[in-house]
Structures are given as structure tokens and as C-alpha cells.
């Protein structure tokens, strides 16, 4: 048994003073030497036991790929990861590893868990930069004949892109329909460049193209084409339309200027590059003092983006610090960069000036109780005490729900919260139409969306085979 090293090999990061001035990536990732050193901390638990594999939503064979890094065989490592996850450069950057693989790692019981996320990212980045990925892709390309049938995928987020890639590799001809002018879903419009550089996404998209996947942007399914039309032309359809509709607070002042949903704020900044206005045509208007409401990944991304526009930023959350839902790395980065936190406050009114711009937020103070809710969070209750905090910009990041364009148009069965109802094969109430990702889960994670995309691809393959056999 190898010696247990309690401390992680740190990953280099850009210094705070430098990085808050631009949107460049914060974490620089491991070098080859550092990655090998970190890989050596893994105890190589046997695959049938390894808790990290169980903790990973798509069950990547983690000890096996880490062993390959130790040997310096990056191609081997990538091959193992690709078995379960075709977007490691992305998941390695955005997965909440502390709740998944790393949260389960045995080394973590006595010291710091093996840095699985950063190792995954290293494999992907190294393989991309050194032509290793290219070699593997060539092997795949041969299989992509497109002869088995035609599948339409709706939505080019992680769920849709994964499903498309898997089906292409099986031999289907896949067309992806995307409403926006660029594919990627939340990865392109939501998650900022400083966490996920766009060039990485571009690279993944180029890979899909190589596999023969066609992406039709500017197509809103349910408006530009109907689901029925797709079903006439394709053997099956996968819906990966995500949960893109922002929840807003139903309190006075919600229409004041400079109150943004996090989606609007982040879309203007990430997708439309408003931080480069007027070089780019889309504007953004912020003041000096920003309050972000909520404490998930979306809130952290909005807060840190506002910080980069030169604002003073406070995150206001109705619960306490222990219930913050964002990834730990993002919370730490936010704190280092100077984002302030205000806990146990619930907004009850936005107060505006005579021009209709927000100037303050009135909060009711909340009080934690001992009791916990079904998700293990401490319950809270209103105190009847209020506090008013000045703010000239507010960003609301309290959650998202599925967009109902398709379900309304096609009459697909939904749950009351708008998520699509699916069976154990991810088939919706409409035969031949499958769904996955946030569209069926509500706000979830990139890796779960990808897992669904992959599972749906298998189910779609079986469905089409059965359909053709009985025809």
C-alpha cells in the first residue's frame, strides 16, 4: 500500500489582484509533473470498492485513469475517461467534486481528498494540446457512418451535446437544433469565461462536427419547427432544453431598472460580451454597489462577473453560510476576490429613485431553527425585523425552471414545476421522444445532464432498432 500523503499538490492560480481585472481563467491547472505528483497520492482502491467511482454520477473508473497518469500514459487515461464522459475538460472544471468523487475519496477521511477534478481536467487539457485527442478521435470517426438512422436533438447544452456525440459514435446521423445563435447551453451563456474558457467549448463542438453531428442554431423547436415535424423526419427525438427560465421575486419594485435576473446579467456578459461594450454592441448598466440574491453557482458567477466590472458586491442569502449551495472552489474564489456575504436576510421590497432605478433593498431578517428540512438544510423563520441596504444594482439568482415552449406546443406531459415526465428509459409521454438534463430534473448539474444524454442515447438506439425490426 502506498504511503498516504495528506496534503494536496496545489494547482497554480492567477493572483487575485490580476485576475479581478479581466475575465481570463482563474485556475491554471496542473502541469505534467504536478499532475503525476498528485496522482501518486491516490491509494488505488480496487474498482469494485473505490468510493470515488460510486460518488461519480457517471461512474468514471477513477483509480484506473489516475494510474495511467502516474505511468505518464495520458492517452490511456483519456481513453478510460471517455468511456463514461466525453467532456472532461468541462466537467473537470465545473463539477461539484467535493460532493461527488472527492467527497467520497478515502484519502479525504484523514487528509485532503485526491484532487480528482483537477486531474481529470489535466488529462483533457494535456491531450488536447498535445494531439493525443486527435489520435483517439480518428479511431472514432470510422464508426460514425450515420447509417443506422436519423435522430434530432433539441438544445445544445451538455445533455443534448452528449446525446448527439454518443449517437453519432453508434452510427446515427444526428442534427442538433439550438434556439440561440451559439451552441453550449449554460456553458456558453451562463458560466463565465474565468471558470470555463470559451475556446474549450469551441474545441468540444469542433469534435462533435468531426463525428458528423450537424448543429442548426437559430432554431427554436416549438416555434421554428414543431416537434411533430421533427418526428416525421427523424426516427427519434431527444429533448435537452434545460431549465432556462429565471424565477423572479414577486415583491414590489421588481420592474425597477438595474434589477437583473442572473440569466440576463450573465447572458449579456458571457454570450454577448457586454463587458467589452461598445466594441461589442450589447450594453450592460451597473452602478457601484451590487447586491446578488441567492447563493448557488449562478449567484457566485454573477457576483464575480460584477466584481470584474469594477463593482462592490455583496451576496445576500436567506440561510446561513453552511447552506450555501455553490461549489466550494467558487465560494473561496469569490471571498478571495472581495465578494461580501450577508446571511439570514430575505428581500421583501426593492426601493427605487425618482427615475425608476433601484437604490436599496429592504430585507426581512431571518432566524435559523434547529429543525432541518428534507434536504438537510436548517429551517428558517422570519423575525419581523427589517433592514434596508443600499444598492444601485441587484441581481436575482434564486433559481430557474424549465422553459415551456416545447411542452406547451407538443402537449408533452409535465410535472407541476414544468419538468418533463419521463419513464425509466427517459422516454416522455410522446413515443419516440426522449428527454434528459435540467429539462427533466430542474436545475441540476452538468455531469447529470451528460449522464442523461448518454443513457438516452442507449435507449434511443434500442428504440430505433426495435422499431426498424418490427417494421
Amino acid at each position: 500500500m502506498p504511503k498516504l500523503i495528506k496534503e494536496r499538490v496545489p494547482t497554480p492560480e492567477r493572483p487575485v489582484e490580476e485576475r479581478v481585472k479581466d475575465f481570463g481563467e482563474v485556475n491554471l491547472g496542473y502541469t505534467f509533473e504536478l499532475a503525476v505528483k498528485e496522482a501518486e497520492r491516490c491509494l488505488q482502491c480496487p474498482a469494485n470498492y473505490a468510493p470515488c467511482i460510486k460518488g461519480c454520477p457517471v461512474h468514471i473508473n477513477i483509480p484506473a485513469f489516475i494510474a495511467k497518469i502516474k505511468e505518464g500514459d495520458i492517452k490511456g487515461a483519456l481513453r478510460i475517461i471517455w468511456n463514461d464522459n466525453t467532456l472532461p475538460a468541462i466537467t473537470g472544471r465545473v463539477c461539484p467534486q467535493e460532493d461527488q468523487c472527492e467527497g467520497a475519496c478515502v484519502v479525504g477521511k484523514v487528509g485532503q481528498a485526491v484532487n480528482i477534478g483537477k486531474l481529470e481536467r489535466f488529462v483533457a487539457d494535456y491531450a488536447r494540446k498535445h494531439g493525443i485527442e486527435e489520435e483517439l478521435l480518428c479511431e472514432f470517426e470510422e464508426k460514425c457512418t450515420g447509417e443506422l438512422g436519423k435522430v434530432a436533438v433539441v438544445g445544445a447544452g451538455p445533455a443534448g451535446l452528449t446525446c448527439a456525440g454518443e449517437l453519432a459514435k453508434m452510427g446515427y446521423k444526428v442534427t442538433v437544433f439550438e434556439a440561440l445563435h451559439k451552441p453550449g447551453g449554460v456553458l456558453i451563456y451562463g458560466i463565465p469565461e474565468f471558470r470555463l474558457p470559451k475556446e474549450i467549448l469551441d474545441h468540444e463542438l469542433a469534435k462533435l462536427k468531426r463525428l458528423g453531428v450537424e448543429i442548426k442554431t437559430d432554431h427554436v423547436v416549438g416555434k421554428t419547427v414543431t416537434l411533430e415535424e421533427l418526428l416525421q423526419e427523424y426516427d427519434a427525438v431527444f429533448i435537452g432544453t434545460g431549465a432556462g427560465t429565471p424565477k423572479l421575486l414577486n415583491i414590489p419594485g421588481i420592474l425597477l431598472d438595474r434589477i437583473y435576473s442572473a440569466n440576463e446579467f450573465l447572458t449579456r456578459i458571457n454570450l454577448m460580451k457586454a463587458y467589452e461594450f461598445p466594441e461589442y454592441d450589447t450594453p450592460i448598466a451597473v452602478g457601484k454597489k451590487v447586491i446578488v440574491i441567492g447563493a448557488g453557482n449562478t449567484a457566485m458567477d454573477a457576483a464575480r462577473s460584477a466584481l470584474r466590472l469594477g463593482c462592490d458586491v455583496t451576496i445576500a442569502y436567506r440561510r446561513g453560510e453552511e447552506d450555501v449551495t455553490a461549489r466550494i472552489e467558487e465560494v473561496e474564489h469569490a471571498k478571495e476576490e472581495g465578494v461580501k456575504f450577508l446571511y439570514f436576510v430575505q428581500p421583501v421590497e426593492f426601493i427605487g429613485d425618482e427615475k425608476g432605478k433601484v437604490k436599496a433593498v429592504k430585507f426581512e431578517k431571518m432566524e435559523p431553527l434547529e429543525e432541518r428540512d428534507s434536504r438537510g438544510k436548517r429551517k428558517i423563520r422570519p423575525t419581523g425585523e427589517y433592514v434596508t441596504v443600499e444598492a444601485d444594482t441587484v441581481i436575482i439568482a434564486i433559481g430557474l425552471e424549465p422553459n415551456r415552449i416545447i411542452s406547451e406546443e407538443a402537449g408533452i406531459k409535465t410535472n407541476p414545476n414544468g419538468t418533463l415526465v419521463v419513464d425509466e428509459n427517459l422516454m416522455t409521454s410522446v413515443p419516440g421522444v426522449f428527454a434528459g438534463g435540467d429539462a427533466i430534473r430542474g436545475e441540476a448539474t452538468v455531469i447529470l445532464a451528460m449522464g442523461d444524454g448518454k443513457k438516452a442515447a442507449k435507449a434511443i438506439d434500442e428504440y430505433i432498432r426495435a422499431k426498424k425490426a418490427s417494421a
Partner: protein
Amino acid sequence: MGYKITAKEDLSPIDYFVEVEAPHVAKAWKPGQFVVFILHERGERIPMSVYKAEDGKVGMFIRKLGKTSLQLYHEYKPGDELWSFVGPLGKPIKVKNYGRVAFVSDAVCGHAENRATLKVMREAGNYTISVQTFEDREKVYPTRFLAREVADEYYLTTLDGSVGIKGHYLDVVRELIEKDRVDVIFAGGSLRNLAKLAELTRPYGIPTYATVRQIMVDGTGMCGSCRVLYDGEVKFACRDGPVFDAHKIDWEDAIRRNYERFSEQERLAKERYLEYLRAKGVI
């Protein structure tokens, strides 16, 4: 992939017509729905009403207003391509036999919808009344772009009376109501006048539907930029509209949000662009 401009023409000193090849949109579009385009890689997502969607082409009436509309006017000609063109977005209006349907408009986006709406209303068996208001003789569109041919009854008004009836569509509507000659009104154009129209028809209980323009980003219900208060509830103009029951809209907020949210930035961008045009000798 781009979307080719197939025609471009001045409508008046302040408005112009542009037609773009976008078969995916033209095939599906219905009156009430709009499109969103982006000029180029650095461009903004711009919502636009549709004048006509036929033969794979989408025609629009555009006001020479700010950075984007001026750039499209001055730098793009037939044969050039728009970078992105998506739609149709929003909900189509309900077409049925209402009886006597009027469409009233006093600005580009309204004039665009006037013709398209009344065309389908007439096909559905309605008696159609069109009212189009322009500032003065100079600003009136060439006849073939007016809604006259789809109207059983047509009124052209100018504010100064230099051609047609002197006055605003509001004056014509007042008369129509007094003579009990209209069952439902659709309207587009300036938000301030739409608000006045809502007040005018409210006491008579005449159903009034207006296109509520709001500043948009995605146009699909993803960002909440276009939110309006409707019957006390937050609705998204792009997803739940853009055509709403005018009596239930909180107009004061809608007007402020549409004109003031980014006015400082818009002014800056326009000034910079005009400087550029001057330097190039275009204007």
C-alpha cells in the same frame, strides 16, 4: 452560415425596408410573432416585427434609430448577410371572426403588423379597418407598403394634415367607437399612444390588443429582460406576448423600461458610430 439580404429600400426619411432570406423563419411565421437578428459577430440581438414572410423571405420595417439600425442601413446592401436570424418568436394572435376588426398604428413596428394582421383577419371573414398615422407627408410610406389593400376601410392620417386626415389614429378610433363601428382593436407603434388607446377604449369595454415592445436579449423567455406587469403579475413580453390585452398592462413601467434602461449606453454607442460614419464620409 449567414442570412442573405435580398432587398433594401427607403420607406421615408426615417424608416426603411429590409428583406432577408430566412426560409426556416418564413415557413413558420404567423402574425403577432416577431424575429430576432444579429448583424455581425459583435452585434446585439435585435427584435423586429415582420411585415411579410413569403417565399422563404422575411421583410421588416426598420427605423433609423441607434447604432444597429443605422449600421444595417448604411453598411449593408442586398447580397450581404446577417449573422443570425431566429424566429418566429412570441405567440401568434388569435385569428377568428370577431366582426369588425381594426388595426391602428403610428410607427414602424405597428405599420409592419397592420398589413399582416388585417390580411389574415380578412381571410377569416372579418370586416377590416386600417388606420395608419404618420407625422407628415414626407414620412408617409410608398403606397404599396401601406395596409390599404387588405382593408375594407382605410384611413391615412398625418399629424399636420399635409396628407390624408389631420390627426392621430386616436381621433379616428374615437369616432369609430362613437358610431359603434368596431368590435376589436389591434394596435402597434409608439408605446405612449398605445397606453392612451387603452384608456380610450377601456370605458367602452372594447377588446384592445397591443404589441408591447420591451428590451429583449434572447427573446425566448430565458432572461427576464422583457418583463412587464400584466394584471399585477410578471409576464415576459417575448414569451407570453408580445401582443397583450392592452387594458391589463401596467403601461407606465413598460414605457420607462423600454426607453430608459440603457439610454446612456445607447447614446454613447450611437455617437461613436456617427463619428465613424462622418470620418468615412458616409454622412
